[in-house]
């Protein structure tokens, strides 16, 4: 079994529950919500993710490479006299570099987001839980991962009960 899933109706409850659970020493927890809940990240004590960093990196690479390519192709590889303009017409070379800066940033960001979130993942134990369907609708969930032992499970179950969730369901592998 993967763990226990508690269902909540609103974001405050969930945030409280998360804080409680961590206070109780449940390290391995997950929170689910149908919309981004302010402060939930902090409550979960998650490290800030690095999507911005990857986007910056993408931007630099995209712009830099394009600008370099323009220089290489017009100055080094095949210099051609175009309308009497200097081979390295640096101002005229900015636009493509700019566009590539933006494009690569976004592509890098999208990848960072998906990979960071381990997506795509079309199969997940949670999907088997009937109640979890509403995690993308109107309900919020707290998942306690518990070791596969009756004792642990019962303890966790008892704890969840104290949070007065709408429901508690078992999540099996």
């Amino acid at each position, binding site marked *: 079994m993967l763990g226990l899933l508690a269902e909540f109706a609103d974001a405050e409850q969930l945030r409280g529950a998360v804080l409680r659970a961590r206070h109780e020493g449940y390290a391995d927890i997950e929170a689910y919500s149908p919309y981004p809940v302010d402060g939930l990240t902090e409550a979960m004590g998650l490290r800030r993710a690095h999507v911005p960093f990857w986007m910056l990196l993408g931007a630099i690479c995209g712009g830099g490479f394009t600008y370099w390519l323009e220089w290489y192709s017009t100055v080094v590889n095949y210099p*051609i*006299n*175009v*309308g*009497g*303009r200097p081979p390295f017409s640096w101002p005229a070379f900015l636009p493509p570099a700019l566009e590539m800066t933006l494009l690569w940033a976004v592509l890098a960001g999208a990848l960072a987001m998906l990979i960071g979130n381990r997506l795509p993942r079309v199969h997940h134990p949670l999907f088997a839980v009937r109640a979890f369907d509403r995690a993308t609708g109107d309900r919020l969930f707290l998942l306690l991962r518990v070791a596969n032992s009756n004792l642990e499970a019962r303890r966790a179950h008892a704890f969840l009960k104290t949070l007065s969730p709408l429901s508690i369901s078992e999540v099996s592998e």
Partner: protein
Amino acid sequence: MSSSKVPPFDLDAARAQLRDTRGPRYWRSLEELADGEGFQAWLKAQFPQLAQDAPLDRRGFLKFIGASMALAGLTACSHPPQTELVPYVHGQDEWATGLPRYFATTLTRNGYAQGALVRSDEGRPTKVEGNPQHPASLGATDIFAQAAILQLWDPDRSQSVMRGDIVATWEDFAAEWLVLRARFDRNGGAGLRVLTRTLTSPTLAAQLEALQNKYPDARWHVHEPGGASLSRGMDASGLPRSVHYRFDRAKVILTLDADFLSDPAAGVRYSHDFISGRDPERGAMSRLYAVEPTPSVTGMMADHRLPLESARIHGFAQALAQRLGVANIGSTGGFVPSSDHARWLDAVAADLRSTQNASLIVAGFAQPPEAHALAHAMNVALGNVGNTIGFGAPIEALPAQALAPKANDDGSLRALASAMRVGLVDTLLVLDGNPVYDTSADLAIADALKHVPHLLHLGLYRDETGTLAEWHLPLAHALEAWGDARAFDGSASIAQPLIAPLYGGKSAIELMSLLLEGNFSDGRALVRQQSASQLRDDDAWNAALKSGVISNTAMTVTSVSPPFPRKRGSSDFHAIESNILDARLSRNDKALELLFRPDPAIGAGEWSNNGWLQELPKPLTQLTWDNVALISPDLAKRYKLNNGDVVELRSHGGKLHAPVWIMPGQATHSVTVHLGYGRTRAGHIGDGIGYNANALRTSDSPWQADDLQIVATGENCELATTQHHFNMEGRDLVRESTLSEYLRDPQSAVAHDKYGEKPPSLYPDYLKGEYAWGMSIDLNACIGCKACTIACQSENNIPVVGKDQVHRGREMHWIRVDHYYEGDAETPTMLSQPVPCMMCEHAPCELVCPVDATVHDSEGLNVQVYNRCVGTRFCSNNCPYKVRRFNFMQYADKQTPQYEAMRNPEVSVRRRGIMEKCTYCIQRIETAHIAADKESRRLRDGEVVTACQAVCPTRAIRFGDISDAQSQVSKAKASPRNYAMLAELGTRPRTTYLARIRNPNPALKDET
């Protein structure tokens, strides 16, 4: 469209052609056989057995498959298809295969010789150049000589002997002739008539003479649809003689409706002479007055131009003669000079008198003999004879009866027509002519021919006459056969074939040899034998072939001034009716005259099926593919007509529908129509366009009708012009000044340029290559004849796009000649300006091309790389001069083998979707470059000559290395008249212009 017409393969014939390798006759060659695209089709057409299927062309393939595979990027695979090499059986290594060769030969226009050098690429004639050694050419040609190449390869040419509608052979005809001949031998040739056009060929003339001697009762008639040359005159007895003008010597020239710059016999030479007398740098410029009813190239060049109805010109001449004190010039009753006319007359008279012995008065072919007489009288009075004008023996060969007119037979077409009607004609042989189409309506030749049992027609096309003929015989093209002709000054020259007759045609002299001797003799032998007196041995013969002229055969020019010619058949030449119009005008000014003129682009019809000429914008109107009725702005106002409105022209009971064109500078009461259109049997190109103006012509006054009435029909028809706006809008594109101004301040024409040729620029100068190519165009020398346009078309494989595409604004000419009008619409100043690519050093087109398809090379050429072009057309949008042309559709005909064979192998054939433009004839530059580089020497100045430069009769275009201060072009650009078009845009054009200088008469200042 024509590969079906290619005759079936005949191995023996082919072998015969191969065996006969005399002179340049043989036309298959190694390179040709190995050459890819161009030849495959050719080979296929001529020798189906030998030909393999033309390989699927890469770009053609892409057109269909490409798009679907574009994303896969596979279309970039440009592996050429597998092709084959066919070796010769017998080596013929006289010249290195693959090198073009030039042969001197002779083309004729209206019978007169035009010397030409014809380029032969692997045995295929591909380009005509002028022959510098020929007096009528001096290295240049007119538009027709250029178009001769297309005519040679025209797939619509007659391709076999036809008996009625049945395909026959020359043998069949020979047999038939023997039968006819037997009868003529008995009856002395009674009923045998020959009809020719103007001819100067000594050989043919001799043969005709022989025919007349052999058959005393046979008759020879001459009919020239295109109008006579100025160099033909008459003496007292009305006997023909040749007139020789020296436009270079004349200080003051007056033309009476004489368009000498486009004279059929010597226009090229006259242009050259005229312009060489107008060099402002020398300070000495002749002054040209033009009195004409309808604007002509000559009128465009005139310093003063007076629009005057054709019928009134004789009166004008009388008035002038009066002022010049010429004796008994007859009653000037008809012509009532207006005050303007009077001023004009006085000024001109004064000017003429002021230049003793150095003026020249010329009357046009459409003017009556009396006008010529007066012109002559004035020349005599002014002492011009012997200085600017001289006389000599006649150059045209004429039938005996023309020299000694028998009763109702003066050798004219009219005489023939009447003879036909009364059944006197049993056999009519038409030697290269089309009387059924190009003769006056009143003769009703087609109808008269019904009375002729045997009509034999020799012609390039199976035309209106050929289809009526009992026997149609394919004529060998001038480039396919031996022949000879004489130039305007009498010098004889030989025409040698560059290629065996494509369709087994025979020349006129070969046919005549059959008529005379009963069997065909070799054309070469005939010409050789004829010229034996001048060319005694092989060396002389070869020399003549090489130079293209038979030395010292020019006429001796005498200054013997003949007495006044009398109007034939009357003792008094004064009382003539040429000013009926004046009489009628004085009564009501509704009276109109209708003028007939050969079309400036397609002549009187012999060039109707020539796409290049059809699409060549006609001088001034810039019309293509149509003939119109030119009317004056006044007339247009009076009848509320606009360009393209169709009117009905009524004259002599005939009527005709024609679209009008408002012609600034047209005489108020003159309406001009052009011949050569409304053909029904011209071919795919010439059929069914325009209207046939001959329908209103009469044989007694073939060039004008005095009783014209016009009625608006309310219809309108689309006309395709290449220029829609003739007002320069105050932009100094064409700059001009007057001689006096120029002498006072040479900068006067170009002074107002703010920055001069090179405005400041932020960009560093590129390091120059070994050469810096540039061009200079002298607007003072350009007469607007458009020979450059068509020479370029021929040299650079420029496609013909057709009327519809021209109408959509998609013509392809790389060098266009713009025309502008200035001043009032009645008497405007007319300007012309040739516009090739400016080869801007800071080219706007290059900047905006996303794929480097148009860039600069190290020698300053703005090159267009066809195979790189993707066709964004941004370059054209950004070209201020709009000299770029785009293949909006597949214009180049890749199906017709004849056209494949005609093309210049040194120039890529552009496919659809590709931008193209003038390249300064890059192929010529490269060829010369390679030749020079092989010898590790510099290119000499003048070693590279662009097609437009070579053809220009007045040397208006100069091309060369502008980094060499001694080069022709550098010297030209050093002139104070030098300026660059739209220089203020900072494009730094390599093509610059020399301002035009006029030489107006101060006495008439306020007029121009």
